[in-house]
């Protein structure tokens, strides 16, 4: 299983609680041992707050007024950094005193610092640095991490840690164990650090008193996974329903990650080929069709298991939404029957295609009785028995979660493919076989440029399919939340991510996209004058009316 943030946050909190609850008299050496670990903890907390998407001190001073949330994060960041600096100075001024690392409090603090650092590393896997050092999103979870609710939840957790550590560090000074032979500067630095730690925690606590983080946001924070694909589990042909469901979740996650990882390359040759997009559309159609079968079966099974009217209705709605989706994907495959990006260079099977193949097999084997089912299976596929698919309510929820993750993966791929196809269409890279033209068209190439109307119909098909796929994921999101399925985190993440995109740069992104589309359309309408030295490109010649009558005769 992929590690999630909660796997690190929870034990970190437990270790801090354990450390501060040790009340025995510690030796001076043990007290000295606490200082480096306290320093590590404070430094990690400062880094967490430093990662938050708020302006730095100088930008804040220039900006005038900040939102209350940003101001809170900024104040906490300043306090924690100051505390860290003080502790660093304290460590330097300690000199070569004897340190005891074996005291339980020291060990707990050390473990807490390790867990917190690992948790931060996990969050950082969702980001990368751009060419100018700016942080860029690297996963679908990145926008969730920087969303307002999750940021608030993270700040709340960090404040809890700080509020335990600050007063406890102050007690070290009161106990007097440190005062023997310790420079006054060190004591003063430790005092400053404990005070700053408390200030950071109290700032967040008081800011969140009236608007505490929601339970959903805390759950979402804990559910953030590491941005590493789980290892591939190839379909074996002997998998039972539960194993198939687990396999679907793994494959869907790998597919999502593969789609995003290869997205930057998917729009340029040689990887940008219609074969990839055609196979993706085919897989999406088959997955959606089989998913509809599964959801219909589950709807019937929900009645038998008395799962409740609300669940039954939501399942029915999800099945209906799915029944709207596969015809759209099928329509796209029909478009790709004729259209292509020309000569296929045969770059081999892409990572996305492999994962999609696994997903098709698993979803199909969930839907149908034949445990060796393949999409090319010649026999008529018989639908699984109700009780076989979901013997109990918990099994039903597992199957729903599998369908949910599969639908989400299909939508993710659709978004990337649509962008890539749009780039190909506006870049005059869509063709059709010359032999499919009516008699009388003299084109001395195996492929001829596709008509604009065909390209437009293809793009419109993607828009419709994407809308239908989004409708399905929304319906399944609601179902997952209602049934408290494991994929409810996916639903919450989508909500947070959508709100984040709309709130921050969604408007700008939409505008940019609209501008690029209208520009491309304008070129086509104007006749697409030859450019970039491609005057002999038949696509441009035909668009520009260079071959009299030929474009008009190709409309069928």
């Amino acid at each position: 299983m992929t590690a999630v943030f909660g796997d690190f946050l929870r034990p970190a909190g437990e270790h801090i609680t354990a450390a501060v609850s040790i009340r025995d008299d510690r030796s001076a050496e043990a007290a000295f041992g606490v200082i480096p670990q306290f320093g590590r903890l404070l430094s990690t907390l400062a880094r967490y707050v430093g990662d938050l998407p708020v302006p730095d001190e100088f930008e804040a001073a220039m900006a005038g007024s900040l939102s209350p949330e940003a101001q809170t994060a900024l104040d906490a960041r300043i306090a924690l950094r100051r505390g860290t600096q003080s502790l660093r100075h304290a460590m330097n001024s300690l000199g070569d005193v004897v340190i005891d690392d074996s005291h339980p409090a020291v060990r707990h603090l050390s473990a807490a610092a390790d867990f917190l650092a690992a948790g931060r590393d996990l969050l950082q896997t969702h980001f990368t640095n751009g060419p100018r050092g700016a942080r860029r999103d690297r996963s679908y979870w990145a926008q969730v991490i920087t969303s307002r609710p999750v940021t608030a939840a993270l700040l709340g957790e960090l404040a809890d840690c700080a509020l335990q550590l600050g007063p406890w560090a102050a007690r070290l000074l009161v106990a007097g164990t440190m005062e023997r032979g310790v420079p006054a500067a060190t004591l003063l630095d430790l005092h400053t650090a404990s005070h700053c730690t408390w200030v950071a925690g109290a700032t967040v606590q008081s800011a969140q008193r009236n608007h505490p983080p929601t339970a959903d946001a805390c759950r979402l924070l804990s559910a953030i996974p590491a941005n590493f694909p789980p290892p591939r589990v190839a379909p074996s042909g002997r998998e039972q329903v539960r194993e198939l469901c687990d396999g679907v979740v793994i494959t869907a996650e790998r597919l999502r990650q593969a789609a995003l990882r290869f997205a930057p390359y998917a729009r340029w040759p040689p990887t940008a080929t219609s074969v990839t997009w055609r196979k993706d559309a085919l897989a999406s159609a088959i997955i959606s069709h089989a998913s509809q079968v599964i959801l219909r079966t589950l709807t019937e099974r929900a009645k038998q298991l008395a799962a409740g009217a609300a669940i039954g209705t939501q399942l029915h709605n999800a099945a209906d939404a799915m029944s709207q989706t596969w015809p759209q994907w099928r329509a796209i495959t029909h478009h790709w029957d004729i259209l292509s990006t020309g000569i296929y260079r045969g770059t081999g099977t892409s990572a996305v295609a492999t994962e999609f193949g696994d997903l098709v097999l698993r979803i199909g084997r969930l839907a149908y009785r034949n445990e060796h089912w393949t999409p090319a299976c010649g026999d008529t596929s018989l639908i699984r028995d109700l009780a076989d698919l979901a013997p109990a309510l918990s099994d039903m929820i597992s199957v729903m979660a599998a369908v949910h993750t599969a639908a989400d993966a299909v939508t993710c791929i659709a978004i990337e493919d649509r962008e890539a196809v749009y780039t190909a269409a506006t870049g005059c890279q869509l063709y059709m076989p010359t032999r499919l033209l009516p008699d009388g068209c003299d084109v001395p190439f195996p492929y001829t440029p596709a008509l604009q109307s065909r390209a437009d119909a293809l793009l419109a098909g993607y828009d419709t399919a994407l809308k239908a796929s989004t409708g399905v994921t929304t319906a399944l999101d609601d179902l997952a939340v209602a049934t408290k399925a494991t994929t409810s985190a996916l639903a919450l993440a989508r909500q947070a991510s959508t709100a984040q995109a709309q709130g921050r740069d969604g408007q700008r992104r939409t505008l940019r996209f609209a501008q690029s589309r209208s520009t491309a359309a304008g070129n086509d309408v104007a006749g697409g004058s030859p450019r970039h030295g491609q005057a002999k490109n038949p696509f441009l010649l035909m668009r520009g009316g260079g071959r009299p009558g030929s474009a008009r005769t190709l409309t069928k």
Partner: protein
Amino acid sequence: VAGVEVIQARLREASSLAELLAVSFDAFEAIRVLARSSEDTVPGLFAALMTTADAAVDGREAITIAPSLSWAPGSTPFASPAAADPGIETITDALAALGALLNEGWPMLRSVRPYRATVWRAQKPPGRPAESIS
């Protein structure tokens, strides 16, 4: 299925590489159109027929780049059978028969692969890079 018999006869009678390629192109088109027209008829065969049509497109695209194939338009369009015409079993039989015939014809094409590659390089269109036939 109307039209399939004609393609089957043309496949059997093809005497040259160019002729075999041309009729294979039409045969793949026939498979595609037949499979597409039947996708909705039996839900249990949806995936199989979708995959069949997709494989037919793969086959047709592979033939399209063959240098011995005439690029001139004029492929015989295969008419989609009317809904009331054949049953699904007739259509799947026709698909299987066409597939088997195409499989018989392909060894001939494979045997001339080096020739095809040579011809292709000689005939490559201006402004386009040489493509490998693989």
